[in-house]
């Protein structure tokens, strides 16, 4: 019996393998696009005999930032999805379930429609508004949820649903009174927008998300017990409230970072955790890192498809995540359904 439990070595090997695959996928996806480029030419450097090397320009200033951004956002959403499904003990939970999406959406819509012209560190205020909106909404939902009990799952979920509906209504109101140009920008943001190109911002985002996923990993054994039954977890000597608050805060934070970088991309945070859980089992020590990496991989591929399939035009990446991810997930579900206890 001891053999089939997760060991640190198995975990390390699997994580390293997944990370290696991710790097390869990112590289391949960076080379794909409407403009075909050759890695060999690009690697010769920025200037090739006095003329600008366009392959290098495209690769380094357009493709690579975009691939990195997709990886950051995918990892953040998948890891936060794993944590929230465990905390809420609900397979339908995703990173947006407690109102983060509508909060961020409201922030972004206000920024776009308000037409703010000021910049912070040379950046448009949309991301900042989205971040503030996301964090503020989570804080609000958490506060309302607390009124119903220490960590009352139903109370939290209902508060999330109510706040989500309310803010979505405000967004729809704002959209209905918006002018053409603003309308387009808002819709584009709400459907997921992968336009960030500033390496400085990307590194900050990558740092925040990596730190978040790593800290969630250290809560993974406790999340196992809490996802099983919080009352029992407490009797096993786990500080349930502390773990819940920490995991919740971290997931909300990485989700807010992801959302403010990329807009609203659905499906990743719901389906990637389930797909990984179906294949590898529900142990969060393995689920968190692997789902993070798979989420990154999934979104990188989805975004590449979105760029390539109707080139030179682009699809919103959210369209692809659901169109490709949905059938893929259903295949997994049918194949592995004997292992899924929540379907019984």
């Amino acid at each position, binding site marked *: *019996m001891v053999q089939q439990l997760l060991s640190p070595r198995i975990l390390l090997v699997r994580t390293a393998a997944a990370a290696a695959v991710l790097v390869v996928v990112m590289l391949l996806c960076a080379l794909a696009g409407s403009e075909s480029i050759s890695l060999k030419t690009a690697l010769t450097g920025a200037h090739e005999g006095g003329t600008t090397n366009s392959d290098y320009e495209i690769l380094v200033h357009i493709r690579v930032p975009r691939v990195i951004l997709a990886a950051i956002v995918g990892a953040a959403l998948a890891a936060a999805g794993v944590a929230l499904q*465990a905390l809420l003990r609900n397979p339908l939970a995703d990173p947006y379930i407690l109102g983060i999406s509508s909060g961020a959406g409201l922030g972004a819509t206000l920024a776009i429609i308000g037409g703010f012209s000021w910049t912070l560190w040379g950046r448009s205020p949309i991301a900042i508004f989205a971040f503030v909106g996301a964090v503020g909404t989570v804080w609000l939902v958490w506060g309302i949820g607390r009124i119903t009990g220490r960590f009352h799952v139903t109370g939290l979920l209902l508060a999330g649903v109510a706040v989500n509906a309310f803010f979505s209504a405000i967004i729809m109101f704002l959209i209905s009174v918006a002018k053409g140009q603003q309308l387009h920008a808002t819709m584009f943001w709400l459907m997921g927008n992968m336009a960030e190109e500033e390496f400085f911002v990307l590194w900050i985002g990558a740092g925040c998300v990596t730190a978040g996923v790593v800290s969630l990993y250290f809560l993974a054994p406790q999340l196992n017990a809490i996802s099983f039954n919080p009352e029992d977890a407490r009797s*096993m000597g*786990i500080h349930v409230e502390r773990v819940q608050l920490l995991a919740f805060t971290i997931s909300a934070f990485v989700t807010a970072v992801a959302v403010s970088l990329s807009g609203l991309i659905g499906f990743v945070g719901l389906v990637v955790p389930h797909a990984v859980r179906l294949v590898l089992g*529900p142990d969060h020590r393995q689920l968190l890192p692997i789902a993070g990496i798979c989420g990154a991989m999934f979104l990188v591929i989805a975004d590449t498809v979105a760029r390539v399939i109707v080139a030179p035009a682009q699809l919103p990446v959210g369209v692809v995540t659901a169109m490709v991810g949905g059938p893929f997930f259903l295949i997994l579900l049918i194949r592995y359904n004997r292992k899924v206890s929540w379907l019984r």
Partner: protein
Amino acid sequence: MTASVHVQNVSFAYHRAQPVLKDISITVAAGRFLAILGPNGAGKSTLINLIAGSLTPRSGTISIDGINIRFCRPRELARKIAIVRQGSVPVFGFSVAETVLMARTAHYGPLGFESEIDRQCVAEALEMTATTEFASRPLASLSGGERQRVFIARALAQDTPILLMDEPTTFLDLKHQVGIYDLLKTIQVNRSRTIIAITQDVNLAAQYCDDAILLRPLSRPPGSTKGSDADLCRCQCRIGPASDVLTAGHIEEVFGVSGFSGRIGKENFFVPLGRMAKDAIRDADP
């Protein structure tokens, strides 16, 4: 490894106006097997959750080996008491081994992995409860009796001197009921654990338990007028050796059910009788 439990003048209420337990005092000596019986709503689960530290008494103290559990950190308490609640199936498909291993979470190393000692505890607990053969199966694929054994294994893996059980045999067939009690008795005797179990089965309690508590609800059902609240409070619980507490008279008084009682060897037994059965007996034996 044994420990005694002292419940001293404990009162508890979920809402101020509706006390559930009033001035309860119980002493469980180390290595004893205590059964808690009583009608629904009498506060049995509340009492066991108070002892487990999941609830805090409004007044009174609960101590283990003389140490008030109120001043224990969760981790310390988890080394003294393990509890098996009424079976819950997890949302996610953990395997039996993973489930049992959870009991050791508080002992994990800094990287979140179990030590060799933790694995030994798990292996031993699986062995004792005869669940080793299911170790790699998902919990949800087991039958009720098997699952209950896994939950007992998890409590054993926590390696505590005291085990609390909330109705360990509900929904189990006769064979598994007896099997669970045989297992608990073995644990009590061979591992010298103190066991406190809530049960609805008067006869199994009489057979297996050293001591018994009969608990009655504080608030009487509407319509009943006999006695004042003060009377009820004075004797909300009756405690003593199982053979003294679980007599037909006491059971009839607390549950309001009459029945057929007798003795097999040293053990009392009690068969509750419904109206038809009573009529039949009266007709046959005027």
